[in-house]
């Protein structure tokens, strides 16, 4: 693959839900290995954008290219490279953390040894055989992170990745989902300060429209206040 090819390219992406436009003509370009922070109030279109990038939603207008492949047409070619950490942990409550990860490992063709590896990385080995429904929210989030990175994706789509995590757990998962992971990342957060601190690029959404796309240094405190006003 061409090293200069952006990991993500959005060209005038629009998505409607009935009469409502969740995204309107959003364009952005994210180089490989960079972190894009998507900011905006509730309902601004952040989760919709992540779902479009995950090829779970199709844009009604515009073009989405991930690693040079147009979505959703060539979704099959990029699925193995995507890791999604959504609001929903995508875990079956009646299965244990280990069973959930083994299920995902089989779907992704990942060796079983990798399951133990990621469980250890999120410090969940001791509770790995408890049903997910018996775990605390923080523990569920840790297993969900283990699931999202199980197949070693190159692009991480992170929707509020540190929700429910205490500071020590947040530090623990840093090598998996933080900058140290080496992945291209798209992350949303309700804590703009934290998101801006780890971003290389910012996409600010207001009512589905991109009101700012650029480097975090150019996105000042006044703009943050205005975005969340």
């Amino acid at each position, binding site marked *: 693959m061409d090293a200069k090819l952006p990991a993500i390219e959005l060209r005038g992406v629009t998505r409607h839900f009935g009469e409502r436009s969740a995204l309107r003509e959003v364009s952005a370009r994210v180089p490989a290995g960079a972190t894009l922070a998507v900011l905006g109030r509730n309902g601004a279109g952040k989760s919709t954008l992540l779902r479009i990038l995950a090829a779970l939603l199709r844009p009604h207008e515009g073009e989405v290219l991930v690693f040079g492949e147009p979505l959703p047409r060539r979704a099959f070619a990029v699925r193995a490279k995507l890791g999604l950490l959504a609001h929903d942990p995508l875990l079956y409550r009646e299965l244990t953390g280990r069973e959930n990860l083994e299920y*995902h490992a089989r*779907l992704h063709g990942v060796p079983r040894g990798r399951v133990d590896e990621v469980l250890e990385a999120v410090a969940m080995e001791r509770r790995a055989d408890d049903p997910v429904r018996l775990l605390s929210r923080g523990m569920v989030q840790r297993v969900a992170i283990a*699931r999202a990175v199980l197949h070693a994706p190159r692009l991480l789509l992170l929707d509020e990745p540190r929700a429910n995590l205490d500071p020590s757990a947040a530090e623990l998962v840093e090598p998996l989902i933080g900058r140290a992971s080496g992945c291209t990342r798209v992350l949303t957060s309700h804590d703009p300060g934290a998101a801006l601190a780890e971003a290389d690029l910012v996409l600010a959404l207001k009512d589905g429209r991109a009101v700012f796309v650029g480097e975090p240094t150019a996105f000042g405190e006044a703009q943050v206040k205005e975005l969340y006003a």
Partner: protein
Amino acid sequence: MRTALVVLRKDLRVESRTLETVPAMILLALITFVIFHFGLDRDTIGGQLAAGVLTATLLFAAMLGINRLFVAEREQGGFDAFLMAPVDRTALLIAKAAALFIYLIVLEIVAVPAFGLLLLGPSLGHALPGIVLILILANVGLSVIGTLVSAIAVHTRARDLIGPVIGLPLLLPALIATARGLGPLLRAGHAASAPPGRWLAILALYDLVFALIAYGVFDFLLED
């Protein structure tokens, strides 16, 4: 096929822990037999009436299973997780249809003898192989059409209504063939030992046609 087995194993494991679907299907079938027992005001029934009662009861119990087939996928994000995996989506159709087929077999293992005890006049004994053959063919149709209908319904807000509203008309030909096939086997006195070949052929053809339709459209149903 390997992916379908992975998904099927997961589904059976979830069902074995929650026991949300199969026990409810069995309970509904048993209650329906009791309702027919009192509603018809007859101690025993046989022939085409018995075949109709058995088929309709199994169909209504199957609707419960059909309605719940994708609930865990929808409520616990299983759809998203599956759709993001680099696997053939047809595996989900095969796994879900196989899961429903197994639920129906378990239902019938309990419901058919219960029907024999509670309602049926003639003994089941000699007709059992024919009944099993017809029910297996009926189960294939129910499983394939049920999976299709469930996949359509799960994306709608009125999914509890959509399942029966779309499913029952689609299943009507299979219901008729099953009931007509079972009728001669459940007749008192001179019951046939083998089901009529015509109805078996219709059921088999119906199964084949819907299996091909399901294979053709299932991918599209999973699309946003």
